[in-house]
């Protein structure tokens, strides 16, 4: 059986790693998001960036549709008089 004669550095490293994980988990709980930094999950962060662009595009579509609807309603009102 192999015995580590000086286990404290390894124990301290493990404790530090656990502390880091706890800190990450607390951040996720506080924000309600699993990806707070791109380094948390680079692939997910890239997808989030794409989704943000698509969301902005969809919002613009909705604004445009609303604007056109208003114009059509005005035209309809004018024609019905």
């Amino acid at each position: 059986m192999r015995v580590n004669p000086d286990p404290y550095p390894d124990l301290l490293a493990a404790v530090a790693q656990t502390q880091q994980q706890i800190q990450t988990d607390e951040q996720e709980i506080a924000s309600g998001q699993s990806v707070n930094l791109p380094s948390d999950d680079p692939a997910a962060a890239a997808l989030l960036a794409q989704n943000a662009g698509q969301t902005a595009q969809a919002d613009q579509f909705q604004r445009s549709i609303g604007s056109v609807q208003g114009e059509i309603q005005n035209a309809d009102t004018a024609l019905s008089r």
Partner: protein
Amino acid sequence: MTSIPKGRTSPAKSRRGNWGDDTGAGPGDSGNSDPIGYPGGRLSQCGEWGAGGWVRSERRRGNRLFNPPAASGVGAAANLSVAITDPALIAASSDGTPGSNGNAEAMYALNSQNIISGQSPTDYYSGIVFNVGNNASNAWRNKALRRWYCSSSTISWRRFPECRWTKRRPTWCSTRTPIPRRPRSSRRSMT
């Protein structure tokens, strides 16, 4: 009028709305690392190109949409600014005829075209986010791993090629102390 780098589409050709057959070739592919804002880059050309359109409300040729950056190269995009504040001044019509929206459609099409290093703007930005996140994650992991290596007493540094002859911790370890020898008592306990 800005100068167009060698091999670029001329502004006159762009004004005719020749954006749909874009192959992705741009200043970024010819060694310029700032393809967006570079004079002659896509947004700058869009501004020049907007000057050739028509302002529907005033029935006249419009002004440019963007102020192209004076400087070229890295950081030029940061100096790019919007030249107009009233959206009604956007030259949506490409020929001045009622209902024409050729300019607006061409500008919108920029969103999905491969205009930056063969990628669409969204894909290019997404790639930047991935690379930054990946590099940061790897750097953190390497740092943690090296810290563990350097503080560990169980690693046989002699097995590392760079430590085989010096019998010391690697040069990237902050501690340059010799590798501790196991006490005799623990050596006996080895099987």
